[in-house]
């Protein structure tokens, strides 16, 4: 199959929006069981056209309007905004349009891991640094479900360097802004580096959510960070960690490291020395191993996105204009084995579609029509994930319609 080239994007997009974009499931999602008819029609959508032209404050009275507009405009990117108190397209200067609903969203960007990853730089993600993202997914997903009790969580790979998380439970959509920011801050454990380069300082009474995160990290830390990212394989990496140590610890660790050669050996030596000396360490270093694990592997959230209810977030099922890759849902439970390289790009999808058409050309036309187009392509698997998410969501929307007191 050919490689994606951005020049061909406009052409490919027009086919994609005509034949592949999952309008039905997508608009059902944004209608939330039609409990409230405004949920869909008051939603802000933002299109980005070729040449970075943004069209904000668009809204669509009904799903078919959305479909028509999408096919007409063929945007390079679609962003989803909040649901407002009025139709965003009718927004006039000075009119006060208030946010009435917004999914609780999280944005994790691989570039925020640059100080702890060695495999890639900038916007690239390989299977090694994806592992960091998968740890983030696991920790966040568990916290959202177990701590907050959320059930309808959609995880999306953005097509290039990030992952997005959409929490769609009714309570989540209706969170007040101060609660929204509280949730965001609860989940933000890493803060700006202090003078020794540490981003987290634990106390003796570590919060359960952090302990649980540590358990998750601990299982894969050596594989993903120590080995995968070779964090102690370079002098720079060693220096970064040595800086966090108080003198008497450093005095033991440094010579030990010099004698060893691999990242794994050095890590094990360090943990050994740390355990032995633990009793003598000052509070700043008492929890150093845990703190390092958190700093290297705890989710790095862009919490401004979570806090601001009117923040736009890139929509699932759009195409990344640079890589041509599809922005698709993935299953958080199997995130560890998800391969970002294996995400289909638009040209592949369209080739698959044409291939299918050729194969069944002989058969009756209505056979062809019965099969949904995306089922003919490798989009299929992530569509199943999306459909399942949607099924559960619609069940609970129906229930809350029947029993509005549930929340």
């Amino acid at each position, binding site marked *: 199959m050919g490689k994606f080239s951005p020049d061909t994007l406009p052409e490919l997009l027009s086919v994609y929006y005509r034949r592949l974009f999952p309008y039905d499931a997508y608009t059902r999602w944004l209608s939330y069981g039609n409990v409230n008819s405004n949920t869909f029609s008051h939603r802000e959508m933002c299109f980005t056209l070729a040449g970075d032209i943004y069209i904000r404050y668009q809204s669509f009275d009904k799903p078919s309007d959305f479909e028509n507009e999408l096919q007409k405009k063929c945007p390079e990117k679609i962003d989803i905004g909040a649901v407002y108190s009025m139709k965003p397209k009718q927004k006039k200067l000075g009119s006060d349009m208030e946010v009435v609903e917004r999914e609780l969203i999280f944005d994790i960007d691989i570039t925020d891991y640059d100080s702890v990853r060695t495999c890639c730089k900038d916007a690239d993600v390989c299977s090694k640094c994806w592992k960091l993202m998968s740890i983030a997914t696991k920790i966040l997903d568990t916290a959202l479900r177990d701590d907050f009790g959320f059930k309808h969580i959609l995880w999306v790979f953005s097509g290039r360097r990030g992952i997005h998380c959409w929490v769609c439970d009714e309570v989540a959509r209706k969170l007040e802004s101060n*609660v929204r920011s509280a949730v965001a801050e609860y989940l933000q454990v890493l803060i700006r580096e202090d003078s020794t380069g540490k981003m987290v300082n634990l106390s003796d009474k570590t919060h359960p959510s952090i302990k649980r995160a540590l358990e998750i990290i601990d299982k894969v830390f050596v594989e993903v960070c120590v080995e995968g990212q070779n964090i102690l394989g370079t002098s720079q990496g060693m220096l970064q960690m040595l800086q966090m140590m108080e003198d008497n610890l450093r005095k033991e660790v440094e010579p030990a490291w010099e004698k060893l050669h691999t990242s794994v050996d050095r890590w094990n030596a360090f943990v050994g020395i740390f355990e032995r000396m633990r009793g003598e360490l000052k509070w700043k270093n008492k929890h150093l191993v845990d703190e390092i694990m958190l700093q290297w592997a705890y989710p790095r959230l862009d919490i401004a996105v979570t806090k601001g209810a009117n923040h736009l977030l890139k929509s699932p099922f759009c195409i990344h204009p640079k890589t041509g890759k599809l922005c698709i849902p993935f299953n958080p439970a199997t995130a560890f084995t998800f391969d970002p390289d294996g995400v289909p790009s638009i040209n592949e999808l369209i080739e698959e579609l044409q291939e299918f058409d050729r194969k069944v050309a002989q058969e009756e036309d209505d056979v062809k029509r019965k099969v949904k187009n995306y089922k003919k392509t490798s989009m299929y698997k992530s569509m199943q994930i999306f459909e399942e998410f949607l099924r559960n969501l619609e069940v609970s929307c129906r229930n809350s319609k029947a029993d509005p007191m549930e929340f």
Partner: protein
Amino acid sequence: MHLSFTTPFFYNSSCSCAHFPVMDFSRVCRRSTKVNFEGLQKYPHELQLYNDFPAFTISIGELEQSMAERLCVLQTLEEVGNRGLKVGTEDWRKTVIEDLKKHNLRGFCKLLTATSLGSDVEDFNMRRRDHMSHYMLRVSYSESEDKRRWFIAREIELFRLRWLYLTESKRSEFLLLNNIKYSKADDREKQTAVKLSYGFMTVSQEYYFIPVWQVADLVRSRKVFIHKGMAYITNDDIISVLLASYRATLSQALAYISRRLHVLDDDPRILGLVKGAGKNTREVEYTNFANKDKVDIRQLDTLAEISYPLCMRQMHQRLRTVHHLKHFARLQYGLFLKGIGVSLEDSLLFWRSEFCKQMDVEKFEKSHSYNIRHSYGREGKRSNYAPQSCMKIISTSVSAGQYHGCPFKTLDSPALLKALQGSGFSMIAQHEIADLAKKGHYQLACSAHFSHSHKGADQVLIGHPNHYFDESQKILMSKMVKKEEKGSSTIVKPPAEKVKADTPKTDVWEDMGIDLSDVPL
């Protein structure tokens, strides 16, 4: 005096629907001592949630007075907060009460500290004034998003303060009276939770279940264990829950009022009352002119380097480089100069020499010298303008290309760090200052700037740029004296040649023993 105020207006939060009570000012009491003392049942507790609309008669005078007093309380809370005292700490509550005493708010002091005023009548009146003034200020502060946010934040602090002064039994009484019940975790639930929480919770404590949405602040700071949307909170944390629901009610009520403000247009007297509140925001006055006419303008460059706060230093540097300052900067800097003791004549000379590097003398005389004389009270109304306080400076708006205002507020972190570069502070110090500024603690940032510029000096809290200057001079002066005593020949950079008369302590910033270690960093 007859006033009737019969508009559908207040949102009664105790019932789920909007409620249109009638506020009746028509029966005005001359003195409201003739209260019916079954009345105290109406306010059975010092603390209230203001759920009910105040339906009684009160004189306009008393109303006005109590509004002013409450406003003073709220402003004091803000000031104390600005000084960096962490809300809820022992220091914080003591400072607030001490400051209120300075403002002669005996009634409020007693009320806030849950102490009786001595008789039922007085207690009743005070509680009523509390009730009334709260409602009136709701109206005053409902107008804009900014005001609403300010008012809610202050009222929340106030409530917290009062809660802290309640005894354990008073607290339970309050919960009972307000019909607030939380379900307790039974032993089995507790055991599961202790296990789930990795021992974060203990079996010996009592816990209540509260939905996490009601305890946002406890969740934010990871103070409580949460599971499936429920927070397990202890008795001590109940205040957070109360505050969260109080906040929600208040913000709803204020939003409701704001949409109906126009109904006030028909009643000029109420409108006047409501609009008047908050106009005369209190400021730190700088009136210490005892040592005028002592600073030589030839020393200004040196002084700018050693004794100016950052705001003034920036304007000074700007003036020296481009030989011009815009209007507000001229005013802010000009008054500061007056305050440090630059005479009118010198001031004219100083501005003229700079400005005339890029305009002719005639134009300067025409457009600027009047203003300078005016600011010294020699023209126009002849009022002697006082140098602007930090609060004033911090609250003025500053747009791009303007150099007045407080740099800790107007500059973003990178710009601020750049401005601090030449200061000779360590990187850590620079970041510490920038961090404080970023968190909105502008005056604390300025105080830190002061400490780093004056090594070894006592902690000084900056409330006024001239105060910064005076303190700095005092320190440099004493250093010089010490060196002279020791007979050393080292020359300390010369402070201004003024001899500070031993003036009585005029400003309130002077002797606050504030512990900065409580500041959340």
